[in-house]
């Protein structure tokens, strides 16, 4: 085996590729050969770090992060750092903050300091297209341990003891979910990984699939063993090309070395996984709609009960878990439930991946234990609001999430605390809006999204959304009586209380929260035509 002096981790997630990661790679190789360093420097492809600029290179030892915006900088970098060992300050990752943070520690530590990476443990560190690297980072150890030393009941009780809860939005305890399916008498059983990630503002699952696909497969195998399933499906949204490719590569590699298939690791446990792709429908992320879609039908939700744990895919008992939920499993097994429970807070154990974007300085994917406040996330990890403006509103959990106004910034983000202020953390998207944004315009965009994605099965959502949009258009054109706002609220209440699935309910929630927190802005629009963003253009 070759020993390299330097390892360069090159981000090749879809964002980095857009920013020219492949060109950077070519140029790097050229330069390294030019300088005769090919036996000293190794280039490794990895996922992204969650930095929203350029193409990232992380150089080990040292963990220095470079951000390459221009391939022309590469010859200099190779010469200076790789050849002469002098880090290139001007290419190092810096945060575009109003008051520049002075970088003292190596930068890797700076952005990671506040983060705890469990779910994203391998993302950015390993080559997602090489199973050997995953294995080298303890990959498939948990599966081996489960198959060789644990009974299915022990696996379930370990997961239950960890208090892991679902990261797909509703926070249902994962161990209980598995137990329900394990106890269901019907056979065969299925495991589904919900990778439909369509929630606007949410891209945590993509980062995991692109950066660490094997962790999903390993976790599904563990879940399958625990509940007695032999077949799994990963339902990935059709737009996620790179995720689909990486998952398929990972499955192929696992099969090749017998980590999927029959008699896994010499036991009598058989398990197989297939990637299934969607075709453009947000509601297909809803678990029962997803199953309809998997069965080749329209992605319309089914009535619950019966729940998927007893009657799911093809009416058989099915466990369905979000990508992020699953990514927790291997470490819980390896390090134990007690260790896991040490992270986070009462009622919300472990870490959570958030996506931070909108009007903040540092955007990206972050993983922290439950219990951080929004203030910490936005002002410390995100380096505050762009242009030093004031915060107007945070939308937590994506378009179907909740509005958090500045007075609640100190509320810790965990299931219980967030619930107390009548909100939900949903998918973990944190959309930051500054004071110059117009709530009504934003609401219109939200409703237009839901209207576009409504499946049309139930009346309150199918008909209610166009009617609510009508009303909003009349608000911005000033063509409405103030008391019609009450009518809008009633409409939203009916939609919320009677819609078939979470989509219609969430849509209604956006109306209710806008009215709750920003009624005066509605009234201003109607009475004076004033719009803070000057967006609703009325003369």
């Amino acid at each position, binding site marked *: 085996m070759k020993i390299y002096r330097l390892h360069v981790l090159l981000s090749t997630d879809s964002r980095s590729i857009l920013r020219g990661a492949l060109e950077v790679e070519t140029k790097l190789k050229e330069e390294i050969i030019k300088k005769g360093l090919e036996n000293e420097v190794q280039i490794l492809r990895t996922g992204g770090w969650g930095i929203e600029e350029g193409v990232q290179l992380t150089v080990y030892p040292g963990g220095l992060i470079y951000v390459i915006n221009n391939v022309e900088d590469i010859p200099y970098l190779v010469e200076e750092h790789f050849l002469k060992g002098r880090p290139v300050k001007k290419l190092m990752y810096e945060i575009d903050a109003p008051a520049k943070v002075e970088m003292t520690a190596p930068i890797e530590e700076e952005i990671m300091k506040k983060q705890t990476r469990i779910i994203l443990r391998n993302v950015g560190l390993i080559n997602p297209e090489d199973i050997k690297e995953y294995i080298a980072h303890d990959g498939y150890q948990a599966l081996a341990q489960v198959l060789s030393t644990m009974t299915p009941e022990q696996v379930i009780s370990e997961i239950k003891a960890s208090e892991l809860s679902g990261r797909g939005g509703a926070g249902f305890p994962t161990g209980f979910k598995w137990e329900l399916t394990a106890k269901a008498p019907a056979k065969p059983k299925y495991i589904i990984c919900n990778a439909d990630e369509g929630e606007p503002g949410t891209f945590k699952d993509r980062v995991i699939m692109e950066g660490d696909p094997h962790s999903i497969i390993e976790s599904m195998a563990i879940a399958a063993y625990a509940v007695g399933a032999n077949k799994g499906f990963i339902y990935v949204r059709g737009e996620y090309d790179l995720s689909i490719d990486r998952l398929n590569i990972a499955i192929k590699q696992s099969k090749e070395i017998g980590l999927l298939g029959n008699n896994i690791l010499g036991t009598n446990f058989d398990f197989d996984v297939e990637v299934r792709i969607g075709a453009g429908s947000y509601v297909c992320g809803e678990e029962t709609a997803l199953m309809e879609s998997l069965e*080749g039908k329209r992605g319309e939700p089914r009535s619950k009960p019966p729940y998927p744990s007893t009657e799911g895919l093809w009416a058989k008992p099915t466990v369905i878990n979000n990508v992020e939920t699953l990514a927790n499993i291997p470490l819980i097994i390896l390090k134990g439930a007690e260790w896991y429970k040490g992270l986070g807070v009462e009622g919300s154990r472990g870490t959570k991946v958030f996506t931070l974007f909108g009007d903040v300085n540092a955007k990206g994917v972050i993983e922290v234990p439950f219990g951080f406040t929004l203030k910490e996330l936005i002002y410390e990890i995100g380096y505050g609001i762009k242009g030093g403006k004031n915060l107007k509103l945070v939308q937590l959990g994506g378009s179907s999430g909740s509005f958090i106004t500045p007075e609640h910034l100190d509320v810790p983000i965990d299931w219980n605390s967030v619930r107390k202020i009548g909100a939900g953390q949903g998918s973990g998207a944190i959309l930051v809006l500054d004071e110059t944004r117009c709530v009504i315009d934003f609401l219109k965009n939200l409703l237009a999204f839901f209207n576009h994605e409504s499946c049309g099965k139930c009346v309150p959502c199918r008909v209610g959304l166009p009617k609510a949009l009508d009303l909003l258009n009349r608000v911005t054109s000033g063509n409405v009586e103030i008391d019609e706002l009450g009518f809008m609220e009633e409409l939203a209440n009916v939609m919320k209380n009677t819609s078939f699935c979470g989509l219609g309910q969430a849509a209604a929630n956006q109306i209710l929260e806008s009215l709750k927190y920003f009624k005066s802005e509605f009234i201003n629009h109607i009475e004076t035509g004033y719009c803070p963003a000057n967006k609703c253009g009325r003369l």
Partner: protein
Amino acid sequence: MKNEEVGQLIKEYKETGEPLLTLLHKIQNLIPHNHLPAEVLKKVSRELKIPVSSLYSTASFYSMFSLKPRGKHIIRVCSSPPCKLEEYDSLIEAIGEKLNLSIGETTCDGQFTLEEQSCLGLCSLASVMMVDNDIYKNVTVTQLPEILDTYVEE
């Protein structure tokens, strides 16, 4: 119509038990106008013994499938709330001006179709748009002509 190739795909489908949506994706990619023509759906219906109404019902549900012929290149502008906060409106307007096109339409020369796209999970790079399989981030109106020109045939 690419009858033989479609036939081959259906055959593979039967052999491997490939999922229906994947089959429809593959067929659509094969058809020059990026859509699922009625005759093709009829063929699929006949061969797989799926009632034509069910097939059509399924195909029409998903936004990535089109039942009408589309342009050679498909411009998809992300229209989800985070992207709309950025350049969405002006992009749509600019595309409309440059190509005389509004959402859901195809240019007369059959080169471009403009569609809305729901969030691509690249929101921190808003506004995002796609042309065919190429993704563009932080798109502004000034970059637009250059982007589109790379697809215009000489």
